[in-house]
């Protein structure tokens, strides 16, 4: 084993007969659906549906209080942010065609940086707007009676607190640790290509 040709000869002895036949592979690829993009599409669809529902509600139930209008507007803006960020992210994936390893690593690094920005800034803004929107939106309906007010706001405030103090910190901690690890690995590969 004293030269590259010997190593190449050894390399070529790898058994490849365990690979699926072309017919089997064709059946597999035809069944495949792009889960990553499907998840983003679902988020966009749900956010658009919520925004449309909110707009429809505005026309059907004519509110008299300004708090309700502001609440509706804030929830629609939060949905808009969700649609915008996910559409932009999906477009980046769709636009990624034929690219070298170097370009691909740069793309992955940028994607992960966008995700970090999303978790640190955009998500906070979206959640803040929708939480505030919900609390304002409820005011008109809840103010009918003291009992309705207490019940509606107990539920809404409890949900908001759970969202901000339990769900988001947990998901943020998990995601940011994973993203930081990934970014370190990507930066390491990036250095190898410079």
């Amino acid at each position, binding site marked *: *084993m*004293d030269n*590259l040709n010997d*190593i*190449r000869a*050894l*390399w*070529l*002895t*790898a058994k*490849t007969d*365990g*690979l*699926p036949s*072309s*017919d089997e*592979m*064709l059946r*597999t*690829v*035809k069944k*495949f659906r*792009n889960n990553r993009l499907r998840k983003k599409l679902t988020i966009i669809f749900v956010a658009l549906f919520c925004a449309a529902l909110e707009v429809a509600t505005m026309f059907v139930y004519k509110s008299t209080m300004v708090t309700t209008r502001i609440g509706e507007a804030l929830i629609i803006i939060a949905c808009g942010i969700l649609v915008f960020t996910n559409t932009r992210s999906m477009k980046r994936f769709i636009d990624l*065609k*034929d*690219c*070298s*390893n*170097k*370009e*691909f*690593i740069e793309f*992955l690094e940028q994607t992960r940086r966008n995700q970090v920005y999303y978790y640190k800034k955009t998500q906070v803004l979206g959640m803040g707007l929708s939480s505030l929107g919900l609390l304002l939106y409820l005011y008109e309906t809840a103010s009918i009676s003291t009992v309705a007010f207490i019940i509606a706001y107990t539920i809404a405030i409890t949900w908001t607190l759970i969202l901000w103090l339990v769900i988001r910190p947990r998901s943020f901690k998990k995601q940011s640790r*994973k993203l930081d*690890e*990934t970014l370190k*690995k*990507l930066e*390491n*590969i990036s250095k*190898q*290509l410079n």
Partner: protein
Amino acid sequence: MADFEEIYAQYSPQIFRVCMGYINDKEQAKDLVQETFISVWKNLSGFRNESKISTWIFRIATNNCLRALEKSKRVMTTELPFHLPDQPHEETQEEKLAFLYNCIAELEETDRIIISLVLEDLPQAEIAAIVGLSAVNTRVKIHRVKEKLATKFKAHGQFE
């Protein structure tokens, strides 16, 4: 335009070997082959011959390999029973190949890709286009990776 089945028959063994060189795990390498050909199938109609079809396919495959790092799976290196002092034996072809994979697995990610493409006998210009380095950088890198691999082989007494 080339037919998917023809492309698969022609390139799948090469892609499997390259993925195996990168990931050193048969099942993960098979998954990477599948992911590669899913991308090929999805984008074949949009392939505009701006690069060679082999360059395009190897780019997809090696990008999938690089992406595997995001799944946090470590590249396998296994202890191999070489040079047992009391039981000298002729290494089988499979043991030698496993040793080669282990040596490659000890290299950095891009070096693993480069040496796998070298061993597939791809021209340097094509390797440069796949990895995204200049021709000069690629030549230097190839030279260094070959040296690193040779050093590992020598260290394990595989050079006779």
